[in-house]
């Protein structure tokens, strides 16, 4: 099988995660924020699969499945919210959605 240092895989995951994080922080459009979030989830999922492969057991992939489920749920609810908010405010600007602030 492939022969790569673990840390390279981990570094890749970290980089992917950070890119996603930058996206969440920089973007004001909710759709883009959701996409960035997907990147971050995938980065974590990659770490799990990597770990599972290193230890040679199935737990990593089980966790991947869970993350997949989570992502599905998150995207479903998130997108529903996006649609709803767009209907209400005619905008996808995250900074304008602060009506609940105390």
């Amino acid at each position, binding site marked *: 099988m492939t022969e790569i240092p673990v840390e390279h895989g981990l570094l890749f995951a970290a980089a992917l995660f950070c890119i996603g994080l930058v996206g969440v*922080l920089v973007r004001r459009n909710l759709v883009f924020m959701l996409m960035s979030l997907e990147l971050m989830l995938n980065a974590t999922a990659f770490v799990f699969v990597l770990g599972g492969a290193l230890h040679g057991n199935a737990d990593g992939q089980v966790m991947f499945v869970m993350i997949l489920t989570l992502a599905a749920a998150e995207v479903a609810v998130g997108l529903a919210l996006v649609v709803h908010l767009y209907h209400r405010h005619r905008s996808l600007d995250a900074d304008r*959605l*602060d009506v609940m*602030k*105390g």
Partner: protein
Amino acid sequence: MGAWLAWIPLLPLLSSLTLLLLGRRLDERGAALFGVGSVALAALLSLVAILLFVVSDGTAWGGQALSWFSALGLEVGFSLYFDGLTAVMVGVITGVGLLIHLYSVAYMSGDDGFARFFAYLNLFVAMMLILVLAGDFLLLYLGWEGVGLCSFLLIGFWYRVPENGYAARKAFVVTRVGDVALALGLLILVQQFGTLLIQDSVGQAQLLWADSDWPFWVALLLLGGAVGKSAQLPLQTWLPDAMAGPTPVSALIHAATMVTAGVYLIARTQGIFLLAPDVLQLVQLVGGLTLFLAACSALVQQDLKRILAYSTISQIGYMFFALGAGAFSAAVFHLMTHAFFKALLFLAAGQVILSLHHEQDIRRMGGLLRPMPFSALCFAIGCAALAALPFTSGFYSKDAILLQAYAHGGAGIAWWLALAGAGVTALYSLRLFVRLFLGECHTAPTPDNRWPMRWPLALLCLLALFGALIPQPLSDVFVSVPAGEQHVSWAVHLAVLLMPWLGLALGLWLLLRGEDLRRRFAGGILARVWRTGWGFDALYNALLVQPLSLLARLNRRDLLDLPVGFLAWLSRTCHQGLSRLQNGRLRQYVAGIVWGALLVLAVVL
């Protein structure tokens, strides 16, 4: 004995309650019936009591009628005590009181507060009687404060005029200062003897306090109370303002009875004062100073009733002077005669004021002799007695004071002041009479021929002339003060006798020169100082009233609330600061999370 004595104050008290509760449903006749009737009955009862007392060769009656309360360590009862001093006081109160009540029926008729007036007046008589009949200091204190209350209510009787309200409040508060001193004196007695029975505590004081500091303090505090009630220095400022009340009130409360309560108190507690010669000296000095200062003030007043008010202060000063000099019975004697002639003067003044449509300024009076001969007669008798011209009642009592005082202590400062005061008294009496009745008539008075008002005046005239003949059963009351070694020489007699004439002569001389005292002194600083009562009012205003009200104004919102308010402000500010973080901006939350992660990682590393 004793139980029925309680009816003397109870009758006016009940009548007062009736008038207060039902007054609005009674017409003037009904109210007058209650008001005068009850005092008449009380006078009758006290006459019986006095006669019985005299017949039973002057042994004092005392007795516990009912218990008021008995706390742990203090028992107080509604106990009464009747001796010669009480007899004199009760006689004066009910006698003069009855005459003034009769007079008031005519004087107050037509006033919409007629029933209320008699309710207060009856209440006053009741309280004054309680004061003098009390065998217990606390009961005395009840009467003491009670008469103060009635004085307050009656000064403010015409309550729609704001000035009356201020005068009333001033009177009550100033006397209350004295009352607090009196109360503290009572507290010492409670602490020392555990009883407030007057005779018991005075007796114990004489037994136990032969040489201790206590008599000094107790006597000083009692003097404080007396000074407040009797308008002596330094608490005299309320009395001239108290003239805002109806004139019969001035006659009864602020001349004849209430203001002499201080004299009564000192006379009653003679036993304690004798143990404190320093305080007795102080009493004499207070009396001497007061009588002279007030007489000077009376000299330049322009308000008829204020002249009489200062004259009252001055005359009570004589009584204090006498008490301080050890001439106790002379003081009580003067108390009685003063009640007669001062009531007469006030009531006659009331008649004049009423005839002149509530004019009180003597500058707008004059020449009233012809239109109002009866009032002129009353004034003549009253002024003569006030000036202590021979063969009037005032002559005997003032003579007694000056001579006895000389006999006891010789001629100190106070004595010279008292002697000089006698001259000034004659001078202002003359001025008063001249300004009112001689000269040109400026006004058109309504005639003073209301007989219901004349009868009491006529009787008071008789009393002012011959009141000195009424015997006073005081021989057993006062411990006779060892007479001083001073020989009363003929020169002293002569001086005392001539002093009023001297004053009169000076007055006549000025009069013949066509000069008026007022005009002579008008521009002078001295006159202004005298007219304002030696500036005591201004002094107290600057020293006490202004700072207090300034303090009150500054701290109206209660500064102690500030720390609490600061705590509230602090927590609200913090809360607002924190809530600003919770601003609903998703990206800032995420940034916050990242910062946190960075920090945690940095710590881990």
